[in-house]
């Protein structure tokens, strides 16, 4: 049993040794996870958004409405599949498939857990890992754009085309910010393999504060906070979720790239959107939230990071991130297109570059332990944050009263009603007041109750 605790973290050498049936089981598991996550994710999103908007959400089909998505999916399969006359038939057919395949493939390099024993085989809970696994993730997300862009183009009408063009510009821009924030992770972890990055977040250092030992967090979400924030914002942009859902902005573009799609093809687009949301949450968990590793209070229990338990921590973190996605959708209004692009290129990108510069400067200082770096970075960062929060904004404009503004208007301007216009009470209002029963006012004012 001793060996079990020693060899928890899989290394690259542990991959590629599984028999074919084990590989098949892992692949099927990843696929089923993606589909189930979609089924439950749609339900989860509708329930949570419903709660936020003070309404019940789907609650009729199955317990708590859990089977609502299944019912919707079945209904969608029986809908008429419409092929527009102006559509490019082959590309129109392939576009949703490309989207789904890319979204699901990305799950193959996500580590779900440490080494476990499956039917006597000692194997990591991950389909596969390569030395450039994070680049595989990036490649999948960049190929996923093709589905949306081609779907928009092949529909042969204006709104889908505009949606497709928007999405290509949007996803390329946000991929740059995303790639740059991963650079910080590479620099700190020293590897590009996902299992290696999870392992690198495991070794926590001990911080001694006021005589007590506190395990300093090894999560990159804390050590590399700016990268984490930028990465998460970029994933929201990359998955076309609100407030960045410009390719399918229903108030501007009907449904964007999926306007002409119906039946199962439409279902595939929906599937790919939710799968990529879950995949991106899983990737964020892996890169920044310690992957399958248990958070601090649980780690006091020795067996927290071994066996099948880590899968539970992993799913917990993924669900928390999906909740943030839903929360964003329930809270924030959609950005305008130019604001969105400006945010990506003029805010996220420069901050990221400066942060990478600062980080590499910090790393090049030798003879300095992680704890010292943490403190040295944490305090100035906090001060900087406070200063930016409290920094006075623009100079206040000199106040001009309304009367002065009116007097300053040039001669012959559009007529304005007088500012002190008294509106006589309507005779109808008086009648309504007179007909109402007199209110009971005896108890209120004198007893002092408020």
């Amino acid at each position, binding site marked *: 049993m001793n060996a079990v605790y020693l060899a928890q973290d899989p290394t690259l050498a542990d991959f590629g040794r599984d028999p074919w049936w084990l590989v098949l089981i892992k692949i099927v598991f990843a696929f089923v996870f993606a589909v189930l996550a979609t089924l439950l994710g749609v339900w989860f999103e509708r329930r949570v958004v419903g709660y936020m908007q003070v309404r019940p959400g789907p609650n009729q089909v199955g317990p708590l409405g859990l089977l609502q998505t299944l019912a919707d999916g079945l209904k969608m399969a029986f809908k008429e599949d419409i092929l527009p006359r102006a559509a*490019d038939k082959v*590309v129109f057919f392939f576009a949703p498939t490309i989207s789904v395949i890319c979204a699901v493939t990305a799950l193959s390099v996500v580590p779900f857990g440490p080494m476990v024993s499956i039917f006597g085989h000692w194997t990591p809970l991950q389909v*596969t890992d390569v030395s*450039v696994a994070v680049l595989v993730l990036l490649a999948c997300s*960049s190929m996923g754009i093709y589905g949306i862009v081609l779907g928009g183009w092949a529909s042969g009408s204006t709104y889908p085309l505009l949606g497709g063009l928007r999405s290509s510009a949007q996803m390329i821009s946000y*991929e740059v910010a995303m790639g740059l924030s991963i650079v910080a992770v590479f620099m700190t972890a020293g590897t590009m393999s996902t299992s290696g990055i999870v392992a690198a977040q495991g070794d926590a250092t001990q911080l001694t504060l006021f005589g007590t030992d506190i395990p300093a967090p090894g999560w990159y979400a804390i050590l590399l906070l700016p990268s984490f924030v930028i990465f998460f914002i970029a994933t929201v942009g990359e998955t076309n979720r609100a407030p960045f859902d410009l390719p399918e902005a229903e108030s501007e573009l009907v449904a964007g790239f999926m306007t002409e799609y119906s039946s199962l093809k439409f279902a595939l687009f929906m599937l790919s959107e939710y799968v990529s949301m879950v995949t991106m949450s899983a990737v964020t968990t892996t890169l920044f939230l310690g992957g399958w590793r248990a958070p601090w209070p649980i780690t006091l229990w020795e067996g927290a990071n071994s066996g099948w338990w880590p899968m539970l921590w992993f799913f917990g973190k993924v669900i928390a991130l999906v909740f943030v996605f839903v929360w964003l959708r329930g809270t924030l209004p959609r950005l305008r297109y130019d604001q969105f692009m400006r945010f990506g290129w003029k805010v996220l990108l420069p901050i990221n570059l400066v942060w990478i510069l600062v980080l590499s400067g910090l790393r090049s200082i030798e003879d300095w332990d992680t704890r010292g770096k943490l403190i040295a970075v944490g305090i100035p960062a906090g001060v900087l944050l406070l200063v930016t929060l409290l920094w006075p904004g623009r100079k206040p404009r000199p106040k001009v009263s309304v009367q002065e503004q009116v007097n300053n208007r040039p001669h012959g301007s559009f007529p304005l009603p007088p500012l002190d216009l008294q509106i006589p009470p309507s005779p109808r209002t008086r009648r309504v007041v007179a007909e109402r029963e007199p209110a009971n006012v005896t108890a209120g004012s004198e007893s002092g109750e408020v």
Partner: protein
Amino acid sequence: MTTQTVLAAAGGVSGGEQVTFWILAPLALIGAIGMVAARNAVHSALWLVLTMLCLGVFYVLQAGPFIGMVQIIVYTGAIMMLFLFVLMLVGRDASDSLIETLRGQRAAAILLGLGFAGLVGGGVYRAMEGTTAAGLTQANAEGNVQGIARLLFTKYVFAFELTSALLITAAVGAMVLAHVERRKQDKMDQIATMKARFRPGNYPGPKPGPGVFATSSSVATPARLPDGRLSERSTPDILPVRELTAQETSLKGTEK
């Protein structure tokens, strides 16, 4: 994939690698031919994407996982996407016509293409003659990414920096040529726009829609003001104000 990588690095060819090659190599060739032969510009770009993806997998097979992934991310994901962007903006009906504008162009192109292929093939053959493959074992000793990084930032750092300077210059030059900077005074904020709207002489309400009270719903038909005059404000500036003739307003027979 790891074992394959190790094998390829050692110079051997595993069964998996052969199978992958014989599946993907014809696909890459089909993509290349399809790119040249496709009539539609977007289809042509998609065939090229197929070829590039196959090439990316070949790189991974040959113990170069980093360059393979970069091929997919940068070339397929970003550059081809920009190509598609431009092609879509041009319009989906921009198919090439088969009429040759230059006489004998096709024959000359085939001849020159074959000649070029012969030259390149001959050059590569002569260069590789007598050399034995060393494999990537030594280069990949401390990992593929680390090996590339070492070369890029030591031996080839000057060439690398020079290339990036060239690219940045090109990008900045394109921006300078294409970008029109407006003066700060010319930028209208919301307050200025509203003030201009309500300035004397400007009618602040919405423009009358074209075709209102007219015999046709055409954009070229101006709206009629209450006193019967035609309003020039209702039609776009590039269209002359005119009333359509009876023949123009009649149905064209295009309805089914």
